[in-house]
């Protein structure tokens, strides 16, 4: 009981880091999902000029040092960057040094993982089933909604969880792009990093590390359960 007390006895800043990390990861996951499905479909089925270029761009964050990705984000989406200035002027959206910027960095870093998972499940769909649905009167939109989407659901769930987990752990691009401001952009990894940099911070770093592990495990188990349920519906177990 005493250790549980110790675990939950977080300072307001530590609580803020936990809440922020969950919020950033959830937002990153939800907002990148539609684009992730679209890009996965394009890469799995599209035949167009520049497909390998698109594939390369999507996978770039996986290969580049996270600091490079973060720096590129800063150049593009910073207040003076072309995209950043445009978004602020016309939509009032600011990314730099805000939690939204952390979410953007996490989404971009996790995007290749999400696309890969969904793309694999799209490639596994038997297109003959879609043809059959077409002969039964379903137009392409209905075919997608009633046949393709349910069949790739396990891949979508896997992609979402991978994205969430990657976003929870993202550090390099986030700290480069939006820095490490407690209560605004200090996510769990940034907070742990900060603890390791100050004397007597070991206890706080350990607390947050255990909390990270619990969140990650919960997410993985949840995805496992959801994917199994989806797979049972498809009866491919």
């Amino acid at each position: 009981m005493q250790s549980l007390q110790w675990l939950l006895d977080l300072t307001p800043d530590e609580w803020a880091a936990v809440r922020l990390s969950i919020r950033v990861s959830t937002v990153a996951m939800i907002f990148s999902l539609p684009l992730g499905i679209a890009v996965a479909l394009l890469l799995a089925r599209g035949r167009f000029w520049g497909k390998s270029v698109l594939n390369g761009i999507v996978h770039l964050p996986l290969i580049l040092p996270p600091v490079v990705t973060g720096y590129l984000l800063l150049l593009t989406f910073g207040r003076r960057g072309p995209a950043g200035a445009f978004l602020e002027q016309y939509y009032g959206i600011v990314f730099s040094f805000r939690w939204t910027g952390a979410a953007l960095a996490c989404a971009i870093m996790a995007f290749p993982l999400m696309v890969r998972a969904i793309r694999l499940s799209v490639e596994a769909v038997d297109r003959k089933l879609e043809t059959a649905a077409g002969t039964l009167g379903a137009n392409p939109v209905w075919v997608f909604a009633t046949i393709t989407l349910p069949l790739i659901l396990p891949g979508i769930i896997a992609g979402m969880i991978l994205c969430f987990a990657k976003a929870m752990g993202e550090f390099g691009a986030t700290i480069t792009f939006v820095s490490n401001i407690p209560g605004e952009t200090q996510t769990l990894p940034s907070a742990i990093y900060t603890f390791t940099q100050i004397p007597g911070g070991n206890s706080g770093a350990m607390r947050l590390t255990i909390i990270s592990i619990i969140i990650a495990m919960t997410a993985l188990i949840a995805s496992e359960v959801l994917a199994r349920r989806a797979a049972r519906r498809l009866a491919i177990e």
Partner: protein
Amino acid sequence: MSLTVDIRHRLATFELDIQFESNGRLTAVFGPSGSGKTSLVNLIAGLLEPQEGRIAADGRVLVDTGKGIFVPRHKRRIGYVFQDARLFPHMTVSQNLRYGRFFVPTSERYGDVEGVVRLLGIGHLLERRPNSLSGGEKQRVAIGRALLASPRLLLMDEPLASLDDQRKAEIMPYVEQLRDEAGIPIVYVSHSLAEVARLATDVVVLDAGRVAASGATSDILRQLDLLPEEERAEGGVVLDMIVDSHDAAFGISTLTSPAGEIQVAGLDMKPRSAVRIRIRARDVIVSTVRPQGLSALNVLSGVISGISTGGGPFADVLINCGGQSVSARITRQSSETLGLRPGQPVFAIIKSVSFDRANIADFGREPAVAADATRTERVG
């Protein structure tokens, strides 16, 4: 209902050049593998767009490359039963059946789920998933799913090809009921002569992407040269007959047609019901005199209308019996010894006939059980 096809379409290995018109209730597209049968139905269904040509069903133009018309597949209302049933794995049988119904305007829907389920005998499967069904059950569900989309035309691409003989026999009666009861014209692809003879009202014979012949089934089956090599030895004719009477003492039923009377072992059918029989050419013996002292019951008298000899040792003798044709496969030697020639009156001794009990106009009862659906009777 009429189906008009006039298309030219180049495929990877050969070119399709197909013209035919059919008004049949069940038009069989018959030919060896690779003759373009599946491509033809894919063109009709809208899964393939022809490079040139026109397809119309029931006066409705589906494709006309000259006028730039191409109706997309989901607007054609053409049911398609695929060789591999293609049931949706994430839906139950019941959801599969109702899938197409959703897309049909209420005013244009016909048939009802209960009726189709009863017709196909799939009531006990409704809550099951497709992957737990046998091949025959899957095919029946696929037929039901296509029917419930209220199609104007039903395409069946070798729906029995992936099934063993027992499963084939299980499904054939349902196809016959469909043909006779549902009132939807059917285009049925097959490379099996037995299926065509049993099911088709009209036949289009394809060979290397071209129409080798088309017309009524009985006319086509008579032209043995059209048959693919492996079926040629099987050649024969189909006769539509009427059950005339039963002789309970001997257990013999008499069938009649303009060709004459045929007696078979007792059939469990009402008098005046229609039955289709197939007489294989190799089961017919030709005699120039009325045979006596023979055990064979069935002797038809007629006049030789033609003798065709290929390069081999056999000759096919076509005998006109009261307007209907019977063909006999005999050796060329016998033909010469007997001095057979067109115009000569002869007797055709029929050793055995094939018929099927389910192929009866009396559809008030359940279709015949699987193994009993097709029988070959040795009568003599």
